[in-house]
């Protein structure tokens, strides 16, 4: 049962083949068995999960059959959960028990999903390997010497190793899609503003977006149905009706125009990933799609613009951690300034401090035009490239990452790590929906395929991903050490 998709679990729960309590207990047992090795969860909520599962079973017995009722999920530890520790992977918040639920959490609670716990992540979502977590690195279940990607690495591993049926994540520069690629699962970032950011601890507010990590595009559609929508508590959430994203999954792709950016098949792309994606594109041709090479001429500037916009916004957002109202405070401060400085220096890890420094510099007097304003202009150029491309094609497809999961501890230089997100970052800068789905294997490790749509083309992106998964079984490949039912 643990290998089943959310859609299949819903059928099984409805048929009475299994109860939510039994299913929840199975996942909790697996977490007990494997989390020591994988480090995917920071907090496990066994008692409350079993209570939620019991309630779900009672509701179902009374005739309720909403799709996520009683389905066990994990939340990235960036979402505030009322009464449950919410650390954001940081020493700064290691003892922070959120006093309210994030809107995303509230929506899953209302849908009757069962929260198994909170997943590990790069500190404040700043990282592409899950090595910056205060709670230690997460291990990739395909090879525990390797990283799972980041920053939503704990969520990706929890799904890949069947330590939950589905998980939430957030994506500021690739933090859902890249770990999904490295772990061989499906990870979807909706358009900016589609999902509420309320109660999601802020990193870079003009880029952050929540989304699902799960086994299939169909599951992603089921989860997005719950997550999406206007929230008056988030002034950047978009007032646009939420579609039923499952309704168009089965649409034919005959006549679909796929754009393949030449910049995503250039220097730096490893041969195994390139070959896998080219073969996956042939599947689309078999489905009646046409492939055209497209040009995203400013793509090469996306990483540099991002490393101004994201740190600048982060430096402002993270100024709230001052040791006064919640979270970590240093011991025996001599005075107020000493308290601020030591609290922040001891509470934040190296990468977070580095980005705060870069952001502070970019926003400091005399540098604003040269950095932040310049980056916003580049952002316009990047967005315009996509607008031009979507005049010609329906979706854009390429690799999610230039390579497969790398070994823990091998990328110590920040700039090398920043280039990890070279294919995903532009999508955040432009606010577009993007998904990563398993497209094959290279050297025994999963390869992710990146499908990008125009503004609010969530349904199209999910449809294109789902049709591939109807033709292939890459999304069913499991890491053998953790994939078996215990």
């Amino acid at each position, binding site marked *: 049962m643990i290998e089943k998709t959310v859609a299949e679990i819903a059928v099984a729960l409805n048929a009475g083949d299994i109860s939510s309590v039994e299913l929840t207990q199975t996942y909790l047992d697996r977490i007990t068995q494997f989390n020591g090795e994988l480090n995917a969860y920071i907090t496990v909520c066994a008692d409350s999960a079993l209570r939620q599962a019991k309630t779900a079973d009672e509701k179902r017995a009374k005739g309720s059959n909403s799709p996520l009722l009683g389905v066990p999920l994990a939340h990235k530890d960036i979402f505030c959960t009322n009464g449950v520790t919410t650390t954001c992977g940081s020493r700064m918040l290691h003892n922070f028990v959120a006093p309210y639920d994030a809107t995303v959490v509230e929506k899953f609670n209302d849908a009757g999903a069962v929260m198994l716990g909170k997943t590990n992540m790069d500190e404040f979502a700043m990282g592409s390997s899950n090595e910056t977590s205060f709670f230690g690195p997460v291990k990739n279940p395909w090879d525990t010497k390797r990283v799972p990607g980041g920053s939503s690495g704990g969520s990706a591993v929890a799904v890949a190793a069947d330590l939950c049926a589905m998980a939430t994540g957030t994506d500021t520069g690739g933090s859902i899609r890249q770990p999904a690629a490295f772990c061989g699962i499906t990870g979807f970032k909706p358009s900016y*503003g589609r999902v509420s950011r309320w109660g999601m601890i802020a990193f870079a507010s003009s880029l952050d977006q929540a989304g699902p990590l799960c086994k299939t595009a169909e599951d992603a559609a089921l989860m997005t149905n719950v997550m999406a929508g206007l929230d008056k508590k988030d002034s950047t959430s978009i007032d646009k009706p939420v579609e039923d994203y499952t309704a168009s999954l089965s649409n034919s792709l005959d006549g679909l125009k796929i754009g393949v950016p030449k910049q995503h098949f250039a220097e730096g792309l490893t041969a195994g990933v390139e070959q896998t994606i080219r073969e996956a594109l042939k599947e689309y041709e078999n489905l009646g799609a046409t492939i055209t090479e497209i040009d995203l001429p400013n793509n090469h500037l996306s990483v540099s613009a991002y490393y101004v916009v994201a740190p600048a916004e982060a430096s402002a957002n993270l100024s709230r951690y001052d040791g006064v109202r919640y979270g970590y*405070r240093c011991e025996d401060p001599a005075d107020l300034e000493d308290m601020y400085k030591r609290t922040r220096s001891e509470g934040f890890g190296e990468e977070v401090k580095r980005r705060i420094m870069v952001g*502070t510099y970019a926003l*400091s007097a005399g540098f604003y035009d040269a950095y932040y304003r310049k980056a916003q202009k580049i952002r316009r150029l990047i967005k315009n490239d996509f607008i031009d491309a979507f005049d010609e094609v329906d979706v854009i497809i390429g690799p999610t990452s230039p390579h497969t999961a790398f070994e823990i501890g091998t990328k110590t230089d*920040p700039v090398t790590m920043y280039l990890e997100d070279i294919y995903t970052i532009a999508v955040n800068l432009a*606010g577009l929906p993007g998904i990563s789905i398993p497209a094959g294997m290279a050297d025994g490790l999963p390869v992710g395929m990146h499908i990008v749509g125009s503004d609010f083309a969530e349904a199209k992106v999910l449809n294109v991903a789902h049709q591939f998964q109807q033709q292939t079984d890459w999304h069913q490949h499991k890491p053998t050490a953790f994939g078996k039912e215990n």
Partner: protein
Amino acid sequence: MALDKSEVEKIAHLARLHISRTEAEGVMSRITDILALIDQMQTVNTDDIEPLAHPLDALQRLRADEVTEVIHYDDLQSLAPEARDGLYLVPKVIE
């Protein structure tokens, strides 16, 4: 653009971060590397380009100024490192 030690100290102070003498060298070189990456932006002329602040060019949505939620001070103050009588306590500021 390369940073020198005094600039690193100034930025650290603005960000209210403490950087020790031994750390300063490493921080300086890493941030200089990052600024070199960022400086790739300067290769493109953007004189006539309108900055993009919001990916959808959306405007701030306004709402009526009404009370929508009640703040539970006790719940919030129980999270503080030090709070008493409805106040957040910090080291003495005025002698």
